[in-house]
């Protein structure tokens, strides 16, 4: 999803800001993984921390970023004491480069960019601050940056998700979470289209569709048909852009056999009724050990490296790497 950059706002020079940083343009192998889900309490931080640890275990150089601005607690899921440096130092320009704000995690190959010492107004960064942070992340000299993204569907949250090469949607098999997950995806999708609407001249259509109430099927297919009616070539361009929006799905806290089927059902429903594709990475069963570890402020994957959650995470990361390899092959 990271092919189109975060999203123009009322910025005096959005074009300049929306280009990939020079660091990315120069043979960077960085891949950004964003973990979102639109709702709090569904395990985004646990998934982020665990995916990052598993990637590091497999020999990748990883930075895990607490991108839950204003609600940062990723360090706790990693079993790291309150870090002495972090995002705030970068945002307030006490350091110039993001890697100067990283703290070690005790796991080889894995550093943390913590948000624990954020200034209190960090939840609402100025546009320029946000773009600087994005460029800083894109300039990190590692293999993977894993972003733990906050809840809700505000623009900052969506933009972190859209920055990622792999946007992982986390949900738990409960109505509230599934509702929010769809809302989150739709909001992210339309925000992504906004980034290209000036190029394609889609303004009116997008506004119309963005206002459609939840539960209606006015989706990409309808939009595409409307655009095609006007202009076939633009329709083709739009379809290509739409296909790039391809989230990955992780189902967390599955308790029953039925819960384990929810992931496949969501992928199927998203494709059939919204018209877009999604990759299912796997399912993590409900595990009492998770809260025990959080209570004792220890990283689950380090405490129980062979436990069933660790095994599920290993499967998820394996699948993610497969998808990543096939994307790289396509790009080359």
């Amino acid at each position, binding site marked *: 999803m990271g092919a189109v950059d975060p999203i123009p706002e009322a910025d005096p020079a959005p074009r300049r800001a929306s280009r990939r940083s020079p660091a990315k343009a120069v043979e960077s192998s960085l891949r950004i993984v964003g973990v979102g889900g639109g709702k709090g309490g569904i395990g985004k931080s646990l998934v982020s921390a665990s995916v990052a640890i598993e990637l590091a275990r497999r020999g990748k150089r990883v930075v895990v970023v607490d991108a839950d601005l204003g609600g940062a607690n990723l360090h706790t899921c990693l079993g790291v004491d309150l870090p002495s440096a972090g995002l705030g130092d970068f945002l307030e320009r006490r350091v110039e480069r993001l890697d100067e704000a990283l703290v070690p995690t005790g796991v080889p190959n894995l550093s943390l960019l913590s948000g624990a010492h954020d200034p209190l107004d960090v939840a609402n960064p100025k546009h320029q601050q946000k773009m600087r942070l994005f460029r800083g992340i894109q300039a990190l000299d590692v293999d993977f940056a894993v972003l733990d993204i906050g809840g809700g569907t505000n623009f900052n949250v969506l933009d972190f998700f859209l920055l990622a090469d792999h946007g992982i949607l986390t949900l738990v098999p409960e109505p509230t979470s599934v509702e929010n997950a769809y809302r989150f995806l739709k909001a992210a999708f339309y925000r992504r289209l906004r980034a290209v609407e000036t190029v394609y001249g889609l303004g009116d259509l997008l506004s119309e569709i963005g206002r459609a109430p939840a539960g209606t099927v006015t989706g990409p297919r309808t939009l595409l048909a409307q655009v095609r009616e006007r202009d076939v070539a633009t329709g083709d361009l739009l379809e290509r852009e739409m296909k790039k929006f391809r989230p990955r799905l992780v189902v967390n806290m599955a308790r029953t056999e039925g819960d384990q089927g929810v*992931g496949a059902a969501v992928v199927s429903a998203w494709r059939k009724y919204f018209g877009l594709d999604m990759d299912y990475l796997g399912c993590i069963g409900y595990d009492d050990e998770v809260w025990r570890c959080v209570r004792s402020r220890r990283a689950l994957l380090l405490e129980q490296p062979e436990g069933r959650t660790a095994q599920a995470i290993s499967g998820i990361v394996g699948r993610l790497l497969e998808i990543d390899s096939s994307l790289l092959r396509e790009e080359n």
Partner: protein
Amino acid sequence: MAEPSHYELLDLAPGCTPQEVQAAYARVKAQLAPDALATYALIGPEERAEQLRRIELAWAVLGDGEKRKAYDRELGLPSAEEKPVEPAIPPPAVRPEASNAMATSAPTAAEPPSPALAPIRAPTVLDPPMPANESSPPPPEVVSPPMEPRSVRPTPVPGAPVDPEVRPVRKTEAELPAEGPVTGEALRRVREALGLTLKDLEQRTKIGHWHFDAIEKERFAALPAPVYLRGFLSSLARELKLDPIRVSRSYLEVVEKGRKS
């Protein structure tokens, strides 16, 4: 992003077995239950009803060996039986949900829709009329949906070759003639064009299939009193996507004339 084929609607790949079709039908239908977690927040009641209609249509075709063969031919696919051992075009992998992936392990990727699949088309009837073996005495009141894949019934036509490949193809429109009385024969043609059996209608309307059979064959003596018949006709018309008022009025006139003559 063309309209999905019957296979795509059921999350199936062409070439799947009848058992897979049956399991997929049950699974996809369950996903469209009003409280199904994966869909209730994504689609509204009208869209749900429309999707269920499509699923039933897909099942009516793919769940029936003969109809499925005809449909595969329409899509330009080799049918399951006709497929060579090493097909020239390998069928796409079955989606994870189709293989009922139990997902503590990593599932396979959801494949993009196969470009080989054409958009859904108005169904056509390639077979001669079904033999009239469904007008026997009434079965039990509640009939559950067919859970076994329907057998491939040979439908011999006197004087016509039975090989489906050489049998003349007769297409039927899913519409009534614009004018004139609504006859039983016309209703049967519409039903068959939609790929529906009398049992399908019974399952959808909870009205015994023998009533629909009597309506189509215009066996007026077997029809219920007009006060009930009107309701049956309206339900039938709705299933056939016809105007319920025109169908019930016109057919009741046909009945009236028939009974007088």
